[in-house]
């Protein structure tokens, strides 16, 4: 009969109408600024730079190797290498970024910079409320704004951060082992040399960092 289906439909929607007032579970909408959906661990928005320790600028892992700058598809990263060097987490002398800018308005969140970075330095952040009144400068962020601590990284992506720390520890251990092996090799060579010419031993310690310093140039 014509009309039965209409009545059935009306009953269904009436159930919805009353149900939304009696049963809050029916309302699927999350009222955003007050309520927030918990972010999933896979959330990725824009990149940030990780630092260790307390001082963001001193602890910055970035070595200004410029791989990310070259790989970035929309070319939104701008890096200027420092003139001087400082000791990085492996105990090796490295450059650091004098300028590190990312234009968030250009960035397409492809995460390629994260994948190519050999120093576990650039990672994806979860912050998404980035609206600004300044259309041009407001989304151009410098290294001070980009620098976020490793604890922050652990908070937003715990599993990934743990893996990253592990990889870094491995690197560090490798570097330490290599340094130790080098020292021992040097010591042995020195001993051998010393055995041959006893005056050569003081030269061994200044030469120690040299093979390690050559290491970061490898991916170029």
């Amino acid at each position, binding site marked *: *009969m014509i009309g039965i289906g209409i009545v059935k*439909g009306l009953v269904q*929607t009436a159930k*919805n*109408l009353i149900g*939304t007032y009696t049963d809050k579970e029916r*309302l699927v909408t999350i*009222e955003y600024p007050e309520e927030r959906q918990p972010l999933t661990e896979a959330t990725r928005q824009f990149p940030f730079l990780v630092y260790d320790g307390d001082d963001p600028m001193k602890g910055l892992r970035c070595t200004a190797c410029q791989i990310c700058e070259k790989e970035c598809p929309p070319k939104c990263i701008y890096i200027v290498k420092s003139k001087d060097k400082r000791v990085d987490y492996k105990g090796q002398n490295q450059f650091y970024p004098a300028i590190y800018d990312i234009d968030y308005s250009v960035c397409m969140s492809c995460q390629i910079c994260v994948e190519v970075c050999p120093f576990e330095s650039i990672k994806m952040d979860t912050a998404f409320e980035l609206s600004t009144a300044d259309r041009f400068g407001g989304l151009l962020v410098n290294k001070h704004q980009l620098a976020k601590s490793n604890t922050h990284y652990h908070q937003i992506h715990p599993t990934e951060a743990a893996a990253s720390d592990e990889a870094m520890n491995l690197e560090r251990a490798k570097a330490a082992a290599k340094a130790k092996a080098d020292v021992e090799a040097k010591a042995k060579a020195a001993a051998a040399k010393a055995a041959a010419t006893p005056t050569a031993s003081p030269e061994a310690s200044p030469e120690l960092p040299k093979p390690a310093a050559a290491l970061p140039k490898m991916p170029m």
Partner: protein
Amino acid sequence: MASLDQIFVTLKEQLVQLFPAVLQPYVGVLLSIVAIMAVFPGIFALTTVVERKLLARFQNRPGPNRVGIPLTKIRLAGFGQFAADGIKSLTKEDIIPRNADRKVHFIAPFVLVVPAFLALSVLPIGRNMTALDFPETGLLFFFAIGAATELSVFMAGWSSRNKYSLLGAMRGIAQMLSYEIPLILSSLTVVMMVGSLSLVTIVERQTSVQWGFFHSWHVFTPWGFAGFLLFLTAACAEANRTPFDLPEAESELVAGYFTEYSGFKFALFFLGEYLGMFAISGVAISLFLGGWSAPFTFLDWVPSWLWFFGKLFAFILFFIWLRGTLPRLRVDQLMNLAWKFMLPMCLLNLLVVGVWHFTAEWNELLRWSLATVLLAGPYWLFSRSFEARFKPRTYRYAADSPAAPVVAPVAPQVPI
């Protein structure tokens, strides 16, 4: 309570008395106009918010609940929304397409809104409260004024020089012309029974007491019930409400005939549509639901205008409920419904009214069962033939097996 019932009538009389005798008729007219121009757009403003909120609830959403008083934290459960919408449409740029027919494009919204206000003025919104009473031709005036709606739809659609607009206008006019026939035929039943075209007389006739405790509304008779349902369906189509919102089908025609309107003219179209809905609801109330009369005699102490507006709100809520429930009809389904189901049922209903009129002396039970059988039998038969027609559609190119091309049944075209 009688004073509360007549409070607006006495208020108007008192106000008119303040003016010199020469001006009094004009002031009286002006006061009626101001009242209509203030009350119904006010209801419109409220309806826009209520509609959005209720539609959301029908779909398990909370709906608009943000806009309240500016610069404060008070949210008023979102009921400030209509003010925000109004300010937005008032201040928005009015864009007229370069190729549009500027004059016709300009006039079209007014051709819709002015008759809508005129149609509202014949409604008896309370005891002794009718702004424009035509003792001979009240209902005829309403339908005559309704004709301007079609003209406005055509003007808007044609002058915009937009294909969507023109398509919407064509659909709109076809739909309105088709559904005007069941609308008028179903209201004719009441005219036949009452013997008057005046809405005031029709309402007064329904205030007589039946069986001791309730008023003899026309909807409480077999022909009245059938007529009410037919009128309601046709009214839905005349007011372009879902499931009959083909002329402005958002998913097909952007916004139908007012696609090319923006800013305040768009708001006028919006207002006109809603005023038309209120007017046609008011006529349905006056014809079938006893106008301003209470359903039961023990509720007679409630002021009459409160009953009218209560019923009007019930109608608005029902229309919103329908919109939240039913999907849109296809054009051929729309025409089939009007010409092959509603028109025969309306004609049959006229016959039943005649039978009802001439069997006034019969036993009530016999009379009722005769009228019910006369209406329900053909209804059942029509339903069967409709169900046979509306089998699940099969599509030739979407079918799984390309071997047997299944042609979807082509509905016969009905000339308009």
